[in-house]
């Protein structure tokens, strides 16, 4: 359907070419619009929550409205922003380019994924408009199945439908990575971003069906009163938690692994160095995906789970921290003797390392059984997972978006404004969420619309931080839009980066490459300063040969 006389993939502007495209790049853009829309809704909810919490007695919202807002915030941020953010937007756009492929393995399935995603999102929105849901994004039974008012069934139906989009996208990425790599692009020549998307896809394909079953069971108990989770009907409420976290803990890694992948691209590019310990970083991605399936019980240390099970889950949770630590150390070591440019994507990447490290370390507090008993269900948990999901994933998403923006649009964003936004985001983020660690340790429970007055000081800090964070998010919206018309022309490779995606024009033509590229070296093959003859130490990725770049 795309014609050849027009150079790039954006050339066509008909409605049909927008909504029925099977071009992975256009679908990536469609996802970008969708997730930004859902992000905006969830962000408004967050703003209202923070405003309410300025005062211990609330006053802005009723407790009922407050409960509906934090549910909305959680559901939309998790399922309709974070999970699809990097995989479905950047992954969709970049994966085939990185592999030297013309498209994903199943382009029509890819389009179907986007439609399912939006159908799910709109169902969830309809649930909000139709009265809302006040169960929290965790839908714990028997509250969700028996006691809650509101549109629980519509909401879980929306998530159920969106789950199929996750599964199809995961499947598409796995097949594409196996089948469509360019000649010579062996597994250990793949960029880490591809490895992390692959690990993410495995999780999506294996874990999402469990969520789908769980949501169906919630619907069945709620509609027909079949006793599954509600003990008064003969069910078991802890069973719900096992099933929920069996999906949702791996899903946490869906919300961070792709971010780690992006950062593994940014650091070598802006340090002009090969990634230190490439096979270890790649292996760590897979290790995290595997271990991620074995730690769900650490959400349930106070749920009445057996203390012996608690110990096993605590131990495994400590183990899953190790591959994350390995990644952080390797990124840091990559900077050694690099030639470092602190451009916007790099600032986001370095911010990511700092905040992810803080989030990961506080995860060790939560994995420590006796400490978890005190801080679970409090703001400590809230702060911890926002450090991972916002400090980690959102920063990585922003870093990746800036890095690949010239590839996506053919234009540069304004660099100075970009740096400013990265800095503002970093400061605003820490001011918002660091006080919440202290709040949590002091005992402030999460999901409270009202609270004892001695906690007010930290809530005010947090709200002040959130407004700064809001500026950090808003700035890029404006300068990205501005850059579409007025940004400098980027050229194929503005960062002088390696990677196949930079060997085709910006924006790329409809089928990506004029001729299929042939790969004869590993990733991140940045020219090193004159050095003694390279004898790669054992265990390192194959590299060498000075191709272009």
């Amino acid at each position, binding site marked *: 359907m795309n014609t050849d006389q027009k150079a790039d993939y954006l050339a066509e502007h008909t409605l049909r070419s927008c909504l029925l495209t099977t071009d992975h790049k256009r679908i990536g853009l469609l996802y970008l619009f969708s997730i930004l829309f859902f992000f905006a809704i969830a962000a408004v909810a967050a703003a209202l929550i923070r405003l309410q919490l300025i005062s211990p007695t609330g006053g802005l919202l009723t*407790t*009922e409205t*407050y*409960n509906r807002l934090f549910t909305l915030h959680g559901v939309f941020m998790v399922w309709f922003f974070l999970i699809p953010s990097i995989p479905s937007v950047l992954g969709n756009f970049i994966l085939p380019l990185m592999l030297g492929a013309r498209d994903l393995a199943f382009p029509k399935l890819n389009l179907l994924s986007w439609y399912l995603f939006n159908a799910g999102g709109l169902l969830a929105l309809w649930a909000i408009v139709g009265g809302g849901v*006040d169960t*929290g994004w*965790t839908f*714990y039974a028997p*509250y969700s199945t028996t*006691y*809650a008012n509101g549109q629980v069934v519509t909401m879980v139906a929306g998530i159920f439908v969106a789950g199929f989009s996750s599964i199809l996208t995961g499947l598409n990425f796995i097949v594409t990575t196996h089948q469509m790599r360019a000649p010579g692009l062996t597994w250990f020549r793949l960029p880490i971003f591809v490895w992390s998307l692959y690990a993410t896809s495995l999780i999506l394909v294996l874990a999402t069906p469990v969520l789908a079953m769980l949501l169906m069971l919630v619907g069945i108990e709620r509609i027909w009163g079949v006793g599954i989770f509600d*003990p008064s009907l003969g069910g078991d*409420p802890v069973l719900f938690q096992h099933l929920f976290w069996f999906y949702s803990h791996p899903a946490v890694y869906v919300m961070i692994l792709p971010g780690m992948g992006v950062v593994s691209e940014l650091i070598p590019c802006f340090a002009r160095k090969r990634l230190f310990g490439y096979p270890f970083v790649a292996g760590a991605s897979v290790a995290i995906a595997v271990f991620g399936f074995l730690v769900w019980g650490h959400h349930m*240390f106070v*749920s*009445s789970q057996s*203390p012996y099970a*608690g*110990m096993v889950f*605590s131990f495994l949770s400590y183990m899953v*921290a*190790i591959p994350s*630590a*390995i990644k952080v150390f*390797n990124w840091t*070591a990559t*900077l*050694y*003797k*690099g030639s*470092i*440019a*602190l451009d916007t994507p790099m600032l986001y990447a370095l911010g990511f390392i*700092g905040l992810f*490290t*803080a989030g990961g*370390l506080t995860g*060790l507090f939560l994995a*420590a059984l*006796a*400490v978890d008993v*005190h801080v*679970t*269900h409090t703001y400590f948990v809230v702060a911890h997972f926002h450090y991972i999901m916002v400090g980690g994933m959102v920063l990585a998403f922003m870093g990746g978006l800036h890095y690949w923006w010239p590839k996506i649009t053919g234009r540069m964003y304004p660099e100075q404004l970009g740096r400013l936004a990265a800095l503002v985001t970093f400061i605003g983020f820490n001011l918002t969420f660091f006080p919440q660690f202290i709040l949590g*340790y*002091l005992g402030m*429970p*999460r*999901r*409270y*619309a009202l*609270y004892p007055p*001695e906690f007010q000081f*930290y809530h005010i800090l947090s709200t002040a931080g959130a407004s700064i964070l809001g500026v950090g998010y808003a700035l890029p919206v404006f300068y990205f839009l501005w850059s579409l018309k007025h940004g400098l022309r980027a050229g194929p490779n503005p960062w002088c980066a390696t990677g196949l995606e930079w060997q085709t024009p910006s924006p790329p033509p409809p089928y990506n490459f004029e001729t299929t590229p042939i790969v004869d070296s590993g990733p991140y093959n940045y020219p*090193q*300063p004159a050095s003694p003859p390279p*004898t790669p*130490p054992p*265990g*390192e990725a194959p590299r060498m040969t000075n191709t272009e770049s």
Partner: protein
Amino acid sequence: MLFPIWPDEAASGAQEVDQIVIGLVLMSLFFIIVVAGPILYFGFKYRRSRPANRVISHHNTWAIEITWTLVPLIIAVCFFVVAASVYFRQRHPPADAMEIHVIGKQWMWKIQHPQGKREINELHVPVGVPIKLLMTSQDVIHSFYIPAFRIKQDVLPGRYTSMWFVPQKTGEYHLFCTQYCGEGHARMTGKAIVLSKADYQKWLTSGEQSENPAKAGAELFRQYGCSGCHAGSRVVRAPSLVGLYGSVVPLEGNKTTIADDQYLRDSILLPNSQVVAGYEPVMPSYQGKLSEDALFSLIAYLKSLGPGAEEGGTQPLKYSNDMGAAQLLPSGSKGSAK
């Protein structure tokens, strides 16, 4: 103070938890320095505009990778062991702990002391005495949390959970529900009030009094016809309940179980789920007929029958009104536990 920076330590275990946390904070600072230090230093030293020696000398990647894998691994295992051992103690109350009953419901805590005194959204406890809370919920999942004691336990419908502590500092402390339970979740709060032993005794005898749970349970035991089969001139053969609590019960199919609170509860509500070996599954279910309060009382009564009591019997059930707790006077011959 304008803002607190550290929560009160008002119970046994609070200091242990805080010590682990201080250890974790120091470890975190160490790793933040280890990561952020080089990032800032390299970011400055090797910035693109600055000349620097960028020639990479040979280094042993494997040695480096193994080092920074093993060091965090060892640290992690240490923290795991310490925190798990404290947790293990948290989960195992001493046998002599004073048992207080807690019922969570949307959106309040109903509490009953062993002597019978009831209170709502307040938990009065004597300093220095091990306290065990036996908890259940009437509706959804709640969670009982006293930050100053560093303990928390989910409170589930259809199930007993417990937690224990020794209050160590008199005063008033926050009590929160921390498992989201609906519209009034943020109002499901109260106070834990630690009193001196003398003040606690004074408080127990002040205000409105109610019957102690074991005694109330004995009345329920007759009122609901339990005694018809489990005591007295039985029409139907049913196991005796004397000395049952805490004993090992042989079940149908060569299984055994320990007769704890949960077992007693299940045997009343779902009698056919665990049938005692050698008996017919003829007991009717009391599901929906007994409130959580009544169940607590019945179980308190059953506990008052043992252990220590010898063999169960076929004698009529008696209890003397002048005693604090109901007492079954056992005699007779055969009987198995339950």
